[in-house]
């Protein structure tokens, strides 16, 4: 379309203008317009002809609304000239926002008065005579929300054919905001049902933001026939955009000026100060990501105004504030003589005509390009440049800082989103959902409209030819049965489906008309106290961690019917401050972030602190060697970092859950608490062996799957299907799994890795007949995967009964730098003369041979042994292994089971911790005590079940010459 437009544009514009009705032309002259804009002139012909559906796409404020209305009004005027028209609504304009309708109403009244067409509006706040006129004398243009349209279907179903008899055009404003949402599915269904009611298709005109790929929008506007939709994409008028990204470091220093009041952290005070100095005196919008921070900033700014003894121009605006208060703010923004800055959530993102703001500020990382684009569009409408300031604060790094925070993800995500915006990239909407919740609503609505309908009719009207393309007959019947089981529908003797008691209650209440959830959130409860509420749109699993009010919590119960999540405070580890967890971050943003980490771009629009923060992030990225997909050990946790969108990360977390590993989503990372990396990798290897899981089976592992309004009426099977379609991306997550397996090839691990069957077993290992070898190693780092080596090893032999028979230990030269000195006390000098592991290999293998290998946290020690054997060019035998950590946990569930704690509990003399020999002796003593405990008093802890694998590899012969050893 673009190329066709750019040629001889003004000639076309004139031609288009001439095609309009004289009264419309007169109106255009009165506006003082010299020429139609490109998008306006290209829309005239196709809309006047009315043979195709049209998408008009252009930047905000480029006149796309008029592009639709001028030819529509022209058609109506021409028809009015021809004689009296059929009574009824002729144009339907559907908009997502009441405020947008009010605004359009004002603008259209003028144009439609010129051609003598009445304009009516209908939404939740319209009452009285204006509302009644639709039934008594429907005419002209009707501006409506999808919800009010739904109400018409339910309450006046039988009048619809009359009301819409002469309907010619349906205009959908802000169409992009509907795509992929439940509300969008509702809208599609309503459009289809209007056509069914009046028994003919009606031309649809979508007004939308630009898409890279319009096929999604085309399919949305005319499901099944998207290819026949004409797209008018006007060459984007490149408006000037001024941008700044400011970074801040926060400290918790109390504010000296505000004694006795709520104190805000330094970064907030600095940001507020900057806002105050630069925004005061103009009309601005300040977007903060949460209501709480809206309140915090408006409070800070109010205090600043008081402090400077000036009137306060900074007002909060969010959904929880009363209507009158919000309207006052909107009116102030619209009026030029009252400079006002609204501190708001996404409420002011779209459409509401508040005039144009002078500048936009964004506090906190923007989570999507579409949202930030929408926000920027609110500024600079009057041929002045758009201005966007972004404020990001991060915390200083200390030894406790979480890996994800070290990466400075907030600032990197902001840069990624801003860069993508400059590249004119745009998130593709998620159109994979089945929208079963909305289908339920529509089933009830059709039943109410017609006073009952048969299954076949419902299927054909909604799914077969309707917009619910993803639902086949089988699934639809399952859905109906599921609804009947829950008394939502019932069946009359002749097969007619009617609303059941539950469905009837839903239908009789006004909240039925909205397809989306109205403020239904999960309540978070801890020890009987309500902490707050949280919308749950990503998987929450029992046992997983969750961050709320700046603290880390463990989920102990989820109750879907009452929508409560019970939490208990989780010990240890600072929560990462990254707070984008709840919002959906797309794949494109994450991949861009990785590109930024890899590159060295420091955008010109960032300030010094921000540039420093970017550099810190890159340093951490290099330090942890976070390529595309990585698993690293961080303290006692393992973290998978994958630069993928939240849907893939969510899916991965569910996959790990299916393997018994609980993982918490933290930004681009997935943290597995208290899981040593080998365990994680073993789980991943096992996952990989099982092949790509079925999404629906995977979804069964997620307890809180009820995301949308009517999901509670779905049986578990349908719910899993719905969830799998909408929230899981198994192929995407599988790529990550494959990559992890490729990067970390499965080690023959203590707990029966896939390789362990290579060696033919000789005889079984069992408690009471096989002796033990207790082993402990000290290492240079926490994981062999990061190049860690053994610096000290000790092996203590016990007989079948657990009595110590022999011990052996030595330091090992790791052939490289010695890390972890603070832990084990060894440095390069100390181990310089020690033997190499390869020299010790035969001795160690012999000492472990024909015995059950025991260690505290065995996967760590055994994992290191495997790694060292691999370094020396041979495979380690698959020793039967026993872990004292697991045994101790088995005996005292819930109590700490680290070696220090066990020394206390088992009254073992505290020698030196983190000396291989002392630790091995301690572990041996734990085992002895467990083996020799009175079996009449407590059940046996050490059982054959605990040994994995349970057979002995072939005997490793004694080396001819014992190797030299070096003790401390």
């Amino acid at each position: 379309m673009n190329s066709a437009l750019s040629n001889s544009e003004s000639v076309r514009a004139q031609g288009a203008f001439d095609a309009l009705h004289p009264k419309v032309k007169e109106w255009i002259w009165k506006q003082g317009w010299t020429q139609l804009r490109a998008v306006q002139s290209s829309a005239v012909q196709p809309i006047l002809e009315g043979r195709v559906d049209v998408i008009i796409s252009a930047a905000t404020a480029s006149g796309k609304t008029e592009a639709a209305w001028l030819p529509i009004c022209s058609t109506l005027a021409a028809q009015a000239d021809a004689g009296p028209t059929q009574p009824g609504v002729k144009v339907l304009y559907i908009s997502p926002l009441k405020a947008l309708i009010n605004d359009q109403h004002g603008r259209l009244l003028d144009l439609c008065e010129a051609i003598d067409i009445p304009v009516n509006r209908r939404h939740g706040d319209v009452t009285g005579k204006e509302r009644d006129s639709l039934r008594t004398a429907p005419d002209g243009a009707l501006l409506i929300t999808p919800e009010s349209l739904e109400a018409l279907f339910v309450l006046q179903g039988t009048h619809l054919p009359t009301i819409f008899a002469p309907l010619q055009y349906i205009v959908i404003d802000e169409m992009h905001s509907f795509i992929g949402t439940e509300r969008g599915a509702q809208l599609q269904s309503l459009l289809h049902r209007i056509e069914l009611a009046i028994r003919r298709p009606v031309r649809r005109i979508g007004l939308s933001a630009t898409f890279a790929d319009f096929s999604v929008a085309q399919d949305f506007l005319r499901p099944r026939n998207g290819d026949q939709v004409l797209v008018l994409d006007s060459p984007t008028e490149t408006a000037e955009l001024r941008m700044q990204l400011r970074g801040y470091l926060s400290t918790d220093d109390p504010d000296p000026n505000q004694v006795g009041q709520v104190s805000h952290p330094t970064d907030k005070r600095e940001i507020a100060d900057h806002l105050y100095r630069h925004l005061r005196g103009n009309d601005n919008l300040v977007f903060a990501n949460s209501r709480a921070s809206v309140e915090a900033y408006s409070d800070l700014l109010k205090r600043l105004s008081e402090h400077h003894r000036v009137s306060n121009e900074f007002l909060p605006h969010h959904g929880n504030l009363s209507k009158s208060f919000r309207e006052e703010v909107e009116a102030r923004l619209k009026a030029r003589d009252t400079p006002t800055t609204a501190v708001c959530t996404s409420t002011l993102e779209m459409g509401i005509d508040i005039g144009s703001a002078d500048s936009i500020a964004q506090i906190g990382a923007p989570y999507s390009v579409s949202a930030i684009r929408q926000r920027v569009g609110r500024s600079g409408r009057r041929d002045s440049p758009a201005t966007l300031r972004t404020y990001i604060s991060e915390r200083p790094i200390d030894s406790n800082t979480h890996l994800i925070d070290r990466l400075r993800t907030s600032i990197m995500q902001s840069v990624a989103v801003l860069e993508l915006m400059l590249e004119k990239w745009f998130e593709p909407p998620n159109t994979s959902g089945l929208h079963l919740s909305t289908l339920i609503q529509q089933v009830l609505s059709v039943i109410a409209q017609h006073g009952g309908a048969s299954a076949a009719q419902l299927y054909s009207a909604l799914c077969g030819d309707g917009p619910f393309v993803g639902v086949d007959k089988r699934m639809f019947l399952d859905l109906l049965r599921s609804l009947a089981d829950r008394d939502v529908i019932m069946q009359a003797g002749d097969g007619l489906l009617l609303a059941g008691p539950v469905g009837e209650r839903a239908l009789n209440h006004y909240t039925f008309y909205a397809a989306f959830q109205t403020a239904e959130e999960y309540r978070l409860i801890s020890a009987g106290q309500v902490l707050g509420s949280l919308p749950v749109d990503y998987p929450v699993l029992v046992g997983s961690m969750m961050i709320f009010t700046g603290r880390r919590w463990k989920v102990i119960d989820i109750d879907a019917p009452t929508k409560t999540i019970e939490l208990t405070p989780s010990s240890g580890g600072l929560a990462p401050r990254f707070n984008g967890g709840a919002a959906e971050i797309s794949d494109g943003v994450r991949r861009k972030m990785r590109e930024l980490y890899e590159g060295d771009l420091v955008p010109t629009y960032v300030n010094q602190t921000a540039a420093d923060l970017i550099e810190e992030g890159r340093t951490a990225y290099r330090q942890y060697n976070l390529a595309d997909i990585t698993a690293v050990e961080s303290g006692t946790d393992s973290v998978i970092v994958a630069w993928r969108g939240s849907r893939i990360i969510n899916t991965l977390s569910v996959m790990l859950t299916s393997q018994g590993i609980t993982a918490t989503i933290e930004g681009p990372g997935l943290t597995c608490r208290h899981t040593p990396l080998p365990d994680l990798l073993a789980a991943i290897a096992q996952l990989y062996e099982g092949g790509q899981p079925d999404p629906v089976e995977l979804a069964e592992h997620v307890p809180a799957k009820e995301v949308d309004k009517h999901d509670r009426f779905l049986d578990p099977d349908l719910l899993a299907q719905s969830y799998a379609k909408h929230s899981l991306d198994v192929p995407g997550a599988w790529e990550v799994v494959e990559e992890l397996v490729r990067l970390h090839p499965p080690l023959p691990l203590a707990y029966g890795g896939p390789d362990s069957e290579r060696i033919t077993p000789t005889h079984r290992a069992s408690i009471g007949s096989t002796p033990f070898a207790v082993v402990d190693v000290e290492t240079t780092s926490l994981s062999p995967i990061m190049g860690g080596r053994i610096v000290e090893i000790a092996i203590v032999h016990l007989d079948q009964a657990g009595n110590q028979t022999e011990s052996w230990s030595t330091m090992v030269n790791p052939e490289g730098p010695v890390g972890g000195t603070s832990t084990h006390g060894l440095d390069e000098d100390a181990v310089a003369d020690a033997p190499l592991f390869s020299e010790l290999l035969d001795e160690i293998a012999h000492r472990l041979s024909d015995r059950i290998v025991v260690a505290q946290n065995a996967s760590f020690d055994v994992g290191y042994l495997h790694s060292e054997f691999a370094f020396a060019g041979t495979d380690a035998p698959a020793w039967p292994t026993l872990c004292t950590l697991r045994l101790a946990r088995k005996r005292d569930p819930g109590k700490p089971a680290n070696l220090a704690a066990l020394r206390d509990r088992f009254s073992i003399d505290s020698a030196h911790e983190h000396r291989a020999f002392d630790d091995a002796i301690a572990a041996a003593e734990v085992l002895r005590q467990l083996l020799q405990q009175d079996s009449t008093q407590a059940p046996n802890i050490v059982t054959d079940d605990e040994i994995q694998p349970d057979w002995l590899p072939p005997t490793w012969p004694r080396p001819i010459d014992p190797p030299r050893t070096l003790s401390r």
Partner: protein
Amino acid sequence: MTDTTNTIRPRERDALLQALRTGVVPRVGQQHIQVGRVNEVRALTTDIDRIADGGSGTRFVIGDYGSGKTFFLHLIRSIALQQKMVTVHADLSPDRRLHATGGQARSLYSELMRNMATRSKPDGGAMTNVVERFITEALTEATATKQTPESVVRAGLNQLTELTGGYDFAEVIAKYWQGHDTGNDQLKTDAVRWLRGEFSTRTDARQALGVRTIIDDGNFYDQLKLLAVFVRLAGFSGLLVCLDEMVNLYKLANTQARNSNYEQILRIVNDSTQGSAAGLGFVMGGTPDFLLDTRRGLYSYAALESRLAENPYAVDGIVDYSGPVLRLANLTPEDFYILLTNLRNVQAGGDPSKHLLPDTGLTSYMEHCSSRIGDAYFRTPRNSIKGFLDLLAVLEQNPQTVWTDMIGTIEIPTESNPDLEPLDTTTDEPSAEPAQAPSPPTQDPDDELSSFKL
């Protein structure tokens, strides 16, 4: 009722056939095709006699879809007309209910009045005739008793003013008389329009007739009671109200609206059992769901359940036709066979020598229907009757055709809600779904949809 020997008048024959071929119940000649149901008809005839005698009565005619409720109701109506009664009838729909606040009750009232019938005007629109008859009666009486017509009219109307809303009703009749007396046709038209419930605002009614009220949702039933008194004043024996498709009340999705309608029914049942609605009878047709469903049927309304409970002894062939509920059994294939015989006879004008089809033709037609739409052909016979008459029409006009060739070609569609049928998008090419070409088992779920049972 099946009288195959009598000849049928051509006018009656054509009207009958035309109605049946367009799928509606004929207004005349039902007796020629009526099958069975002698006892049911007798029970209703007794009712009509009682109403004509100044009594009252309410009957619920309950039967499955297609069991012939509508046909039965029409038959009863024609019997009532023979008994010099005035009848009104209407189908209920989401827009026509017994009780409403959005004009749906007034809409039902208007529909009833539009369909008002008398023996001399059986096709509806008899309101003017009834009022005119009242005037004529008054004039006759005035001549006989040597009073002024005015005072006779007033005396008659006095009886009306006793009843709720009767003053304005009487006033409107008086206006009609005034219009009649002074030759003011506009006044007469306005009066009839008011009686038919066609005034929608009080202002209009006041300007036209000087009355302060109109017939609206609130006084629907009171107006029917007034009308019953009025038709007796006009010399008719009573008023019979036939309400069909009562199942629409059962289908109402709004619990409140449904219960209000059931409350209205309770009022009607109470009045008629207590005999306080002289000369007024109701016959209501509905499905078993409408009556029996305890969640949303009449039985969901406790007061109605106790009043309408069926005789517990009337089971297993023992019948009681005296209760308020009259059960219509489904048609059987045997009944349908007799129906076809009757139709063939009507088509031949009652002359067996002109029968276009031998008896074997009837059975093979039934087999054909059965193979196409299953049991529905005799349970809901509308479409199979239509198909049969189409066949006869072709055979009659094309003597060269042989019936055996024709039977297999007749289409018998199943009935469905036309509003929900997919749009006929003729612009679409038929090969629009190449991706799903190899899908042979589509037949299976299709069947499942149409025969879906919870």
